[in-house]
């Protein structure tokens, strides 16, 4: 524990709140039309089918209305955004060759430290392109592919085309259509049959230029019997102008495979974060989403598992922290589409300083999903009288032989718990933070150690000055 505390002391708050002067090679003009989409495609030297696909998706995006539910998107002006910013020309594999300004950013985020800890691979995304990419030799030898999404398309065009848009088609929702039209950056991961990647693959995403939209697109394919843990951490510098992030993550979990996708979302509190994350889980496969949302102005994110094969299992651990001016509209979806499928959603949310956190979930059990089992547990803490907590779970059942359970509770930090802790010499702030740490513990304990430390520290930062 003392080692962890030392690490904690080393992280100062400013670390997550800084900006670099803008440096980029190409920046598209503001707004979005077929010309901008064409420019993005041309810059990426893409095959014709992708270019056409982008343009079709753009039409779909223009045709679909904005969602009428969820967070308030009034402040989001889709015409006042840069849709593509290319920071440097080349993808880097050697840390020393990375430009100083960008490196500084990552240094403060602690990527080299992660590297030192023998993590499986590091892909860091600075604005819209992967600038740093490294993967341990042994994984490469096993046939594991861990590339930027652009490289994935270039080096493995057939594999890419086989899966792109199959889990999240661009017709799915307005922002999936937008992402398909302007996607840039993200990861392409393929794990060959029966390969188990022991250490987590990691990617950091960062936004720097004000008013750029970041549209990462990731595809993860876990072939039969394979296993992988992918970690995505996001932090963003503070800006006064609203930024927009809208990613699409597609995951294919083949027979007997196991994938865990961990997100720590800490965008600065002016970012709109509208993300579509979905996994197609085949026979006996397991998909686990570990999703924590601390930052952003408004987030709409509901990672989903489509349990399409018998005995497939979906699991979702979700945490949301909504502070001043924040609206965290998060949750998860479990669609049981085959027999003997099982799922579990555990959600923890905290609202403070007038923030609003909402859990929105769906458990759908299809007629075919005989003997499906699903469980949803939502717990919410409200820390003051100005804040708000909402729970909107949907349960739709079409099968006979099922077992579905849902429970939710909303409460404040118990006076008795606070009294006990303060009587042991803790300040009220320390006591509240401790109760919250305990509250989110089921999620934190599933994170890799460095992330668990970072997460606890972020919660502490959020709680500073909370009581007084």
């Amino acid at each position: 524990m003392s080692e962890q505390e030392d690490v904690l002391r080393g992280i100062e708050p400013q670390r997550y709140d800084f900006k670099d002067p803008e440096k980029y090679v190409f920046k598209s003009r503001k707004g979005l039309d077929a010309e901008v989409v064409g420019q993005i495609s041309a810059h990426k030297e893409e095959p014709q089918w992708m270019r056409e696909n982008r343009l079709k998706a753009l039409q779909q995006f223009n045709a679909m209305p904005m969602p009428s539910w969820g967070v308030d998107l009034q402040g989001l002006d889709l015409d006042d955004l840069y849709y593509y910013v290319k920071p440097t020309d080349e993808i880097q594999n050697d840390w020393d060759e990375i430009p100083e300004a960008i490196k500084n950013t990552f240094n403060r985020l602690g990527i080299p430290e992660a590297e030192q800890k023998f993590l499986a691979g590091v892909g860091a995304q600075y604005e819209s392109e992967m600038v740093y990419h490294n993967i341990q030799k042994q994984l490469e030898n096993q046939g594991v592919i861990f590339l930027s999404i652009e490289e994935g398309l270039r080096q493995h065009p057939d594999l890419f085309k086989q899966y792109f848009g199959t889990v999240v088609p661009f017709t799915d929702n307005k922002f999936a259509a937008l992402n398909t039209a302007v996607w840039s950056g993200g990861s392409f991961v393929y794990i060959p049959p029966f390969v188990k990647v022991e250490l987590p693959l990691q990617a950091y995403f960062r936004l720097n230029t004000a008013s750029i939209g970041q549209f990462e697109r990731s595809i993860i394919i876990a072939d039969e019997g394979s296993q992988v843990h992918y970690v995505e951490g996001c932090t963003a510098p503070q800006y006064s102008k609203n930024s927009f992030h809208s990613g699409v993550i597609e995951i294919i979990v083949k027979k007997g495979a196991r994938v865990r996708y961990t997100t720590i979302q800490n965008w600065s509190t002016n970012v709109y974060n509208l993300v579509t994350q979905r996994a197609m889980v085949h026979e006996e496969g397991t998909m686990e989403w570990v999703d924590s949302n601390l930052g952003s102005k408004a987030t709409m994110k509901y990672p989903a598992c489509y349990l399409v094969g018998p005995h497939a299992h979906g699991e979702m651990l979700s945490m949301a922290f909504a502070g001043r001016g924040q609206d965290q509209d998060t949750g998860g979806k479990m669609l049981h589409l085959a027999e003997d499928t099982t799922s579990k959603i555990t959600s923890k949310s905290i609202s403070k300083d007038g923030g609003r956190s909402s859990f929105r979930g769906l458990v759908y059990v299809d007629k075919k999903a005989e003997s499906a089992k699903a469980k949803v547990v939502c717990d919410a803490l409200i820390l003051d009288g100005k804040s708000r907590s909402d729970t909107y779970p949907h349960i739709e059942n079409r099968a006979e032989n099922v077992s579905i359970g849902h429970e939710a509770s909303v409460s404040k930090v118990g006076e008795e718990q606070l009294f006990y802790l303060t009587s042991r010499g803790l300040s009220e702030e320390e006591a509240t933070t401790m109760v919250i740490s305990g509250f989110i513990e089921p999620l934190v304990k599933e994170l890799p150690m460095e992330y668990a430390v970072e997460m606890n520290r972020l919660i502490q930062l959020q709680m500073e000055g909370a009581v007084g």
Partner: protein
Amino acid sequence: MKQTTSVPIEASKPMNEFSFVDSFVPVPGHLSFLNDLQARALETYRSLPFPDETTSGWHKVSLQGLSSQSYHLPATSIACEPERVGVELATKYAKQMLCCRQIVSQQGRRVNVPAIQGTGLSFGLSSDPAVAFPEKIIQKIGQIVPAVSDKFTAFGYAFASTSTVFYLAEDQVLKAPVFYQEIQQGNHLAVPSTTLIYLARNSSATLVRQRISDDPSHDQFSAGVLEVHLEEGAHLDLLDLNGVSSQSWDFQNQKVILEKDAVLNEFTLLHSPGFSKYRMQADLAGKGSQANITGLFLPAGKQRFYMDTHQNHLGENTVSDLQYRGVMDGESQSRWEGMIYVDPKALRADGYQANHNLILSRSAKVDAIPGLEILTDDVRCSHGVTVTNIDPEQQFYLTSRGIPGKEGVELIVSGFIQKALDRVSLDSLRQMIAEEFISRINKTML
């Protein structure tokens, strides 16, 4: 590979308006306030389109199959029945309860009211000059559930021409339960209705309200409003038994306002209509008010039930506890959508909602959508939902004790239903519901 969660709903044709709407002319009653209300409701009704998928609160509700052109309104005439006509239940329970009835047919409305002098109870139709309701009570009609809420609510106010009012004066405690039957008589009858239950300070009553069709094969359309106001310290036990025919379409909108320390115990039984859209809202406005709400719904065959419940905590120290239990069979569809809302002012609110569903058939569809909207911190709110089938282990246990398959299932279902019945506080009423309704439904269901 399935890409979408939405269940396809047949493309619905625009609904035809009821044939009587254009030619309808309200007959002025003796109360100008009610005449105004009716005129406004009629205007609202005519201006609103039929709700569809996109109308708020009507998600997934399809009105397809509602043959609006076939229905006729009852005449506006009102008659009092001189004697108690022996309807089976009313006769059987006449000794234990104050029994009263209203028969709605194409000929008009007939009411039968027992001797209630000296009880502090006023009961009857608002348009009946013989029943002298205090003016401020009559003024409440249309104030609790606004006529503009939706098209079917406006229908009730626009076409009913009269309201059924149940008023209990201050400090009055009714010892015997009131058993009130509303009988819809005749095929293709449209039944608009509005009912007001008003309990003055510290009064207390138990009311059983049963709505039935005269013939189970009759196709009827009913759209009604139930307004309930409980003044400070008032206590109401309300049993709402919906027994209209399986050919019928039923739309009901209910709202209860609870003042300081008022208590509502409500039990709703929904089993017979072919289509039911039921909305229930409890506004816990006064400090320390309390609402215990129980629903039991038993859809089978092709029945479709859509239920919305709202527990609104507006005052301090308010308590609500809702439990909806459903047993679904056949190709039935049911959807329960619940919401607990806690206002920033509602400190120390305690809200609970539970929905338990037992599925007996593989063709039944069930949706459960609980919800919490909490705007303050000093609260305790939670909800729970389960969807299960008959537990094979329970069945095995029963079989091993010599109770074979079908009987075993009956026993498990009875046990499941009993948990809802246990929430009816009065023993005699619990027994009546169990005997008169549940046992019968059980027989037809299994």
